[in-house]
């Protein structure tokens, strides 16, 4: 222990000039550079449809939606300790709410997306108190049971295609908000213009969700959440309302997950209960992205989703083998590199682009 740390003044206002003040910092110089680079990247991605092929746009829709789901699962399970294996429930609910909104209520698809998120949040609010009765690991399977039950319930709605699912005709989507403007702006046919519109929505969601989580984790609420995960009784003893913060997080994550589901299925324009509530597509891939990239970091899911994208283009033609490789990779990373690829790199080279740790340092 150094002499200075003993000399720490009690409060800032009484501190004489020249004596160092200890303060907690989160940002680093690199993180400010990363913020500028991040803004530039988002601008480039937003302008990309002007030159990119339709295939690339569709690939990027996949990357952006998976990134958003991975960030959401990471905050829920990594920081919040709510290890859900049932997030496909909210993708499916969002997707079904979108289709119900378009087909049954005649809503505009773009307007239906936030409503789909609200619907997923409502169901999450109802399920939460029930599932939270299951502690820790039991919650994981409980959430999976809930997702299966919701899948079977959605399959009962004959007007939404029952067990086999349904499609939305391009005609029904041709009047979609913004579609004509995109067509005119980029000179595209309706189908390609719809992809571009969905791409922008996916980009918007990815940016908002990532920034929202980043701000949340750096706020005192993020600290309260981590405390609830690490030691509930201790957190409660210093005034953290652990049950409330976890319940609100669960609902907020369901809201955003539902919107992602709606965006994904707006592009697909075809839905079935088995696909929309698929544990492999919406939870296994997402978990693998977070584990491979790095749990409890903002950068991890970004690295993970890029690795997944690379593996998809290389291995996807082999179907099941792809999932065997991905699963084995995730297990090996969990065993030998539990912080994931990004976590290990960040530790080795002391890089943090989106720092969430708090550092005790001296102010100038």
């Amino acid at each position, binding site marked *: 222990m150094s002499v200075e740390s003993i000399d720490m003044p009690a409060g800032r206002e009484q501190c004489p000039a020249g004596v160092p003040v200890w303060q907690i910092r989160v940002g680093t110089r690199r993180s400010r550079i990363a913020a500028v680079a991040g803004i530039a990247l988002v601008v480039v991605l937003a302008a990309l449809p002007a030159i990119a092929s339709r295939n690339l746009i569709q690939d990027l829709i996949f990357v952006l939606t998976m990134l958003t789901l991975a960030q959401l699962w990471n905050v829920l399970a990594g920081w919040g300790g709510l290890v859900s*294996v049932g997030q496909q429930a909210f993708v499916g609910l969002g997707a079904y709410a979108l289709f119900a909104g378009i087909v049954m209520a005649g809503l505009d698809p773009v307007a239906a997306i936030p409503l789909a998120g609200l619907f997923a949040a409502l169901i999450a609010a109802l399920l939460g108190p029930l599932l939270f009765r299951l502690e820790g*690991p*039991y919650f*994981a399977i409980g959430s999976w049971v809930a997702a299966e039950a919701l899948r079977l319930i959605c399959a009962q709605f004959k007007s939404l295609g029952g067990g086999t699912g349904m499609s939305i005709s391009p005609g029904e989507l041709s009047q979609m908000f913004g579609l004509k403007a995109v067509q005119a702006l980029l000179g595209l046919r309706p189908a390609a213009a719809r992809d571009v519109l969905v791409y922008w929505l996916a980009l918007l969601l990815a940016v908002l969700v990532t920034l929202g989580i980043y701000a949340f984790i750096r706020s005192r609420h993020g600290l309260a959440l981590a405390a609830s995960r690490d030691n509930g009784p201790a957190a409660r003893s210093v005034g953290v309302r652990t049950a409330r913060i976890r319940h609100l997080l669960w609902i907020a994550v369901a809201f955003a997950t539902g919107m992602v589901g709606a965006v994904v299925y707006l592009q697909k324009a075809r839905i079935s209960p088995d696909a929309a509530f698929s544990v492999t597509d919406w939870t296994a891939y997402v978990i693998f992205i977070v584990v491979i990239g790095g749990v409890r970091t903002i950068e991890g899911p970004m690295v993970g989703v890029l690795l997944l994208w690379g593996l998809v283009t290389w291995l996807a033609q082999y179907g099941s083998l792809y999932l065997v490789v991905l699963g084995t990779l995730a297990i090996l990373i969990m065993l030998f590199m539990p912080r994931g690829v990004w976590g290990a790199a960040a530790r080795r080279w002391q890089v943090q682009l989106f720092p969430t740790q708090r550092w005790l340092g001296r102010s100038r």
Partner: protein
Amino acid sequence: MSGFDTIIEGVLLGGVYALFALGLSLIFGIMRLVNLAHGDLILLAAYLVLSATTALGLPLAAASLLVVAAMFVLGFVLQRLVLERVLGDDILPPLLVTFGLSIVIQNGLLLGYGADSRRLQAGAFESSSVTLAPGLSVGLAPLTALVTAIAAVALLQLIFYRTSLGRAFRATADNPAIAQLMGVNERNVYAIAVGLSLAVSVIAAIVFGIRASFDPSIGPARLLYAFEAVIIGGLGSLWGTLAGGIVLGLAQAIGGRINPEWQILAGHLTFLAVLMVRPRGLFPARRT
């Protein structure tokens, strides 16, 4: 078909679910590990028995013994090489590793055996039935499943409360550190527990594989049924797990009688209803 038949069917179905649940309940109880690959390991066992009977041409009983031994060793090795490294205060790593294992086994089976439905062949045993009372006869295979489940619970109870291994299990479950001070080898106890869990799963796999056809994709559903049986019955009680399995079987049979599409859903909703009304299960262990 009368309502009575439905109840019999449900109770017999419950025997299978209880067998699914026993292995899960065992390692839940001893090491607080939730094995998300449990259902897929049951499927792996069923396929191994299938291979032993068809490719090696062994009779079902010999094949079963061989696979029980193989799965015990697999469980032991799995714990010592993989699970042991991730067990700890953080619940995330063991869940993620077993979830990864689930995906690997499921897709590995798909690669090895294809997506076709298979069934274990048990000769005349499959279709024969016994008459319990005039006008009431039940299939021999489902009845054997229930009897096997009861026997398995009784045997596990015996191991738990009458042997030194069982004492080591209970001591480690209560407090691993103190158990170690008393000379219990914690690593071996855990590895034997996982091995035993997989060995019991082989019995579940055989009973299930004779009754119904299976394909690689149905593993996760077995895990969910097993989990529902454990939670409905109440944590920490093997007889409770048997009762939970029967409640689940009854719910599915009654739901399926009303509308075939509601069979599985009725089971899930019963689970959620029990969670709402009696979160500690219907028959919780007296010890807290």
